[in-house]
């Protein structure tokens, strides 16, 4: 019982902690902005630099690193076991958080084995090329709304978004395509035929799924009429029929499903993890020791966080705290930093929940075979996505306020729920009696 209430308290305190963290982040970014404009920089430069440091290097990296430990603990909770708990500081294992230090130390102190005939430049470049695009994807994610932060009496408009470029979604597609380079280079430059095969597998899987990644977002682009992620998040705040927020989850459920699964395949995460395989098949990083492997390993987890962030931004309302939004906004004041902190805290909580969902899905499905992966992409996902694009376009043409689209989306969700719940229990006696007696006759 004690644990029940403790865990409920923990679960409730996560959004609250994220809110306070965002408050601190807003203040810090405001200070740097004040410093920068005081030193003569153009209006948003200082904020952008502060955002890079705090958001990307701080929050995303911390989340990615914590996710490596959290994955082991949550996997253990799914599998009815304890998980790593033997590193104790002052007698407390604290949920296994100290394993972060152990993993980092392990990777840093491993022997640097270098295959002799490798291509030097490409070999050294590959971990960086695998790490950088996934890291950089976070630059266009709007973590918090723009708000005026008062530093020493001067108002600065600060948004928790590193770069609000006009081609936000296009940047995402571009960076996801760049991520292919890392795996291709890693496989090719290792001077190992199995690594090349693994690299080719990984590359072809990633390239195939980028097509459906892009097309699945085309529907959302049409619905929110913008490529900028910030506009998409803002547009999700509009209320349909006076009550339902226009979340991507309601407007584009098919797009969400396809995007989420394609994101899985992009990150090469289970069940699409045939390229890395983990002790069953030789992967593309077989010749990478220590921290070079650590970079690619961490890149995968950071990509999990970043794709969770993008999914949250486009499909789950981004920084809108969907529940009790109106009451909270009136309570705190619509333009205040606390409202923005609540929004950013809500976004961070959504990212955590989506990371958790990715982990849960990892343990639901067995690994797909390579031909199954490709068949799924080209024969099932692409037609579904194209159909979704046409359908969305037709519905938006008919009804420019997104109500018809939302209606169809809700109908799709209802259909999925009904089909999922309609489990027919097969009776045990459906076997043909002839087959049974034949088997018995053969058996004796």
């Amino acid at each position: 019982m004690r644990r029940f209430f403790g865990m409920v308290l923990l679960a409730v305190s996560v959004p609250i902690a994220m809110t306070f963290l965002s408050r601190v982040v807003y203040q810090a970014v405001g200070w740097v902005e004040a410093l920068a404009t005081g030193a003569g920089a153009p209006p948003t430069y200082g904020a952008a630099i502060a955002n890079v440091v705090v958001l990307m290097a701080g929050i995303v990296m911390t989340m990615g690193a914590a996710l490596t430990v959290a994955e082991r603990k949550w996997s253990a909770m799914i599998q009815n076991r304890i998980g790593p708990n033997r590193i104790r500081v002052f007698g407390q294992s604290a949920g296994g958080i100290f394993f972060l230090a152990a993993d980092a130390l392990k990777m840093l102190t491993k022997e640097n084995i270098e295959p002799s005939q490798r291509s030097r430049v490409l070999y050294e470049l590959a971990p960086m090329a695998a790490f950088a695009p996934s890291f950089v994807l976070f630059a266009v994610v709007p973590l918090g709304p723009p708000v005026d932060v008062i530093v020493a009496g001067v108002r600065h408009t600060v948004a928790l978004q590193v770069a609000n470029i006009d081609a936000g979604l296009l940047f995402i597609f571009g960076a996801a395509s760049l991520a292919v380079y890392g795996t291709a280079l890693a496989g090719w430059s290792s001077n190992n035929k199995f690594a090349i095969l693994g690299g080719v597998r990984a590359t072809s899987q990633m390239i195939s799924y980028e097509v459906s990644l892009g097309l699945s977002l085309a529907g959302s682009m049409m619905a929110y009429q913008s490529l900028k992620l910030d506009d998409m998040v803002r547009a999700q705040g509009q209320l349909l029929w006076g009550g339902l927020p226009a979340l991507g989850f309601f407007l584009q459920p098919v797009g969400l499903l396809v995007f989420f699964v394609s994101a899985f395949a992009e990150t090469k995460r289970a069940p699409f993890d045939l390229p890395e395989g983990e002790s069953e098949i030789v992967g593309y990083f077989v010749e990478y020791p220590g921290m070079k492997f650590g970079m690619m390993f961490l890149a995968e987890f950071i990509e999990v966080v970043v794709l969770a962030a993008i999914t949250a931004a486009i499909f789950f309302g981004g920084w809108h705290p969907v529940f009790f939004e109106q009451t909270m906004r009136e309570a705190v004041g619509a333009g205040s930093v606390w409202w923005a902190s609540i929004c950013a805290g809500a976004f961070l909580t959504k990212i955590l929940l989506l990371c958790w969902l990715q982990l849960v899905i990892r343990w639901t499905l067995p690994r797909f075979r390579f031909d199954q992966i490709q068949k799924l992409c080209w024969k099932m996902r692409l037609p579904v996505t194209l159909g979704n694009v046409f359908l969305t376009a037709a519905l938006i043409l008919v009804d420019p306020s997104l109500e018809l689209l939302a209606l169809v989306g809700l109908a799709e969700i209802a259909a999925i729920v009904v089909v999922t719940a309609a489990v027919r229990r097969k009776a045990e006696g459906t076997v043909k009696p002839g087959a049974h007696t034949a088997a018995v006759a053969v058996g004796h």
Partner: protein
Amino acid sequence: MPYQLPNADLDLRERMYFPEVIRGVGIIMKQFFRNFFFGREKDPDILARDRSLSQNATLAYPEERVPYPPGYRGLHRLVPREDGRPRCVACYMCATICPAQCIYIEAGELPEDPIEKYPVKFVIDELRCIVCGFCVEACPKDAIRMDTGEHAPPSYTRSAQVWDETRLLRGPTVSYQYDPWLRRGSKSIPPEKLEEMRARAKPFPANATDEYAQTPGFSVRALAAEERERAKLPPKT
């Protein structure tokens, strides 16, 4: 096939895959929440744990142990008599039959008693031991048993696994009425001690029984109850 497997083809709903995948995700989520909100029970008797809340079946090893079953061949012990000496008469049966030749005995004579021997040195190298239990079966005096209920504890050096008679002489004492030193009396045991041992000796059993199972504290449930006592958990029915 002894039983028929329902090997039907997938119907349309199952061929769509995602309904079943969503159901699977629901099952996994349920397991996660059960283990997230409810801690695991720390009962060493895993089968007796209440599985309605958290189904965690783990024991945190060295703090929580599964009690070994009766008849478990574990660490050897030299069975003592009530006067503190081992029951062993250094007859070399166990050393002879040991397949791994891990028992080394040096016999010695008792100064007062010209008939009985006793082991001056009785050394077992637990690393060589293959835990077959032949020595226990061969011993005519029930002097060596493997009923300690624990395995040889791990150590950092090989020499720590060489157990001599001072380390092996432990555990509850055992006496039978047909023991020669009780039946005809032995000069090495003082008379009042002899009477006491005769009073506590077990009679010769009419049919062959499993001596180990009679030794107290050797049911798995009883051992689990003891460990629960030690961990101060509420008793189970």
